[in-house]
């Protein structure tokens, strides 16, 4: 039932029912009523001339029921939204059944007074009032029940899709490892004693890094800003690892105004340090190399780290996830034009990003 059209028929109040106050919803309600009328008329008079008469009368009856119900539900919506799903369904069902019962009583009396009017659904003259109302209420209960169930399932599905999307964004943003967070806190605690000025700087650096990681997913930075974040990250790790960590920057070729998704190079540095430098007794050098091809307009950024003996970092869960995240974000920003590749050569592990040099956000 096409009630939810382009999100216009929905208010974000948490109720699973579509907003029945909108024109598109009203149109849908009319359509539903007509479909039910068609089913009932076909069932009562399959293929004879009384069919059209019957359809017209049933339609009249059902439109009254449907539109009155929709109007009431529209008015009552704020109250229903305050209830939990089960109670809201029961209340909505009660409203519809009450309307159907009331309209049935009206129709029955009208059939009695107005002798010339042909019987409505079945023949009210033969049927007693209570039988007539009961039949209609049962039919209404079944149809309303199915409809409510449909709305509920559709709403659940929509919520799942949204929750999944949110979980993805959260995962993308939780790129800074807890390992790094707690080690940094520990370093700051140590520096606070020995070198308060460095501690202050480390807190500022950490704040910059977290601000960037909390920015909206999809935020683009200039290469200059992204490289600055990497330097900030390096500074924090340097306090901790001292001489064990050195970083070789070869980035003079790069067009610094080109745009990249925020925190695309930093996680690569983090992986390089975590897998390549920290586990090795003598430490190691991470090299960051940028190449720019002005003709093709593409940028290649490579982060390389030594492979400590006996540990294949490319297979590590954290590393794989970080690369997968990057791939998704690059695909989102540039589609096929960008990519992420990783390879181990001898005792070096290397990740390369390539993407078009664009100065405006793509």
């Amino acid at each position, binding site marked *: 039932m096409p009630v939810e059209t382009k999100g216009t028929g929905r208010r974000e109040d948490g109720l699973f029912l579509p907003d029945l106050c909108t024109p598109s919803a009203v149109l849908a309600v009319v359509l539903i009523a007509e479909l039910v009328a068609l089913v009932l008329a076909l069932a009562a008079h399959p293929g004879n001339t009384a069919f059209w008469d019957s359809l017209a009368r049933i339609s009249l009856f059902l439109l009254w029921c449907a539109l009155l119900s929709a109007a009431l539900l529209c008015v009552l919506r704020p109250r229903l939204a305050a209830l939990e799903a089960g109670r809201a369904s029961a209340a909505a069902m009660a409203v519809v059944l009450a309307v159907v019962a009331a309209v049935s009583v009206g129709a029955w009396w009208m059939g009695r007074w107005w002798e010339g009017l042909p019987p409505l659904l079945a023949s009210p003259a033969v049927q007693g009032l209570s039988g007539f109302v009961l039949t209609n209420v049962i039919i209404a209960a079944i149809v309303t029940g199915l409809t409510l169930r449909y709305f509920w399932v559709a709403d659940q599905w929509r919520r799942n899709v949204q929750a999944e999307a949110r979980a993805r964004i959260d995962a993308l943003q939780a790129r800074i490892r807890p390992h790094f*967070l707690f*080690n940094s806190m520990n*370093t700051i*605690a140590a520096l606070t*004693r020995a070198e308060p000025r460095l501690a202050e700087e480390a807190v500022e650096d950490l704040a910059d890094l977290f601000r960037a990681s909390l920015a909206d997913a999809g935020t683009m930075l200039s290469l200059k800003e992204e490289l600055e974040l990497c330097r900030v990250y390096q500074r924090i790790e340097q306090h*901790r690892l001292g001489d064990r960590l050195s970083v070789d920057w070869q980035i003079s070729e790069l067009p610094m105004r080109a745009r990249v998704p925020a925190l695309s190079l930093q996680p690569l540095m983090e992986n390089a340090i975590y897998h390549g430098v*920290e586990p090795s*007794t003598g430490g190691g050098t991470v090299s960051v190399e940028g190449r720019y091809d002005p003709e093709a307009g593409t940028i290649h950024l490579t982060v390389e780290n030594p492979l400590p003996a006996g540990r294949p970092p490319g297979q590590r869960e954290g590393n794989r996830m970080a690369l997968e995240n990057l791939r998704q974000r690059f695909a989102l920003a540039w589609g096929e034009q960008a990519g992420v590749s990783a390879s181990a050569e001898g005792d070096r592990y290397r990740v390369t990003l390539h993407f078009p040099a664009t100065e405006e956000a793509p």
Partner: protein
Amino acid sequence: MRVLVVDDEAPARDRLAGLVSDLADHEAVGEAASGEEALELAQRLQPDLVLMDIRMPGMGGLEAARHLAALSRPPAVIFVTAYDTFAMEAFEAQAVGYLMKPVRRERLARALRHAARPTRPQLAALATADPDSRPVRSRIAARLGDALHLIPVDTVYYFQADQKYVTVRHAGGSDLIDEALKDLADEFRDTFVRVHRNALVALAHVEALTTDPQGRLQVRIRDVDELLGVSRRHAAEVRRRIQKT
């Protein structure tokens, strides 16, 4: 109480040593930057307690603690970790003392008061619980008087048990260790094979299988003169493992 601080990061070491020295009756007697250094200092300085970082390059804290347990007077150990999902559960389960970085002054004081020597089974269980550290030691600790002699496992030719001790025959000679052959067999099951009720042989060092004049199966080990007898019970398994390598 004399405390040895072990952490690969200098600021972390300095801070812990400072916190320890701030406490009355406690003294940080040394700082080590790796598991190897920790073992060396522990023997030289004879600390009462070691504050041991878990994640260090080279020999990690869990392995270092297992070697410390082989000392004649092993120190108590409190593990220190920044963030390990496995850690809290495993340490609680084994009732082994641990601290989370950044370490709080009061927590440190309390941990020092309750410090205890972790037992070998506790340490072995911790090593298995850590997904990032291999539960298999890279070295075997042999005690020579008060000194600890670390034998790299890949230089070991075989382990042989007699009544009380296990003899480790390795590239640098042979030593006695105080461990059960069964535990060694479990720990090194990927690299060693049991050839007899009382012997484990390193697959990497096996040269050939031979039979003596009486028709008994024997294993010849590279760089080792004597041959080791293979018992009938283990023959099939030994053949299979040797063919695979």
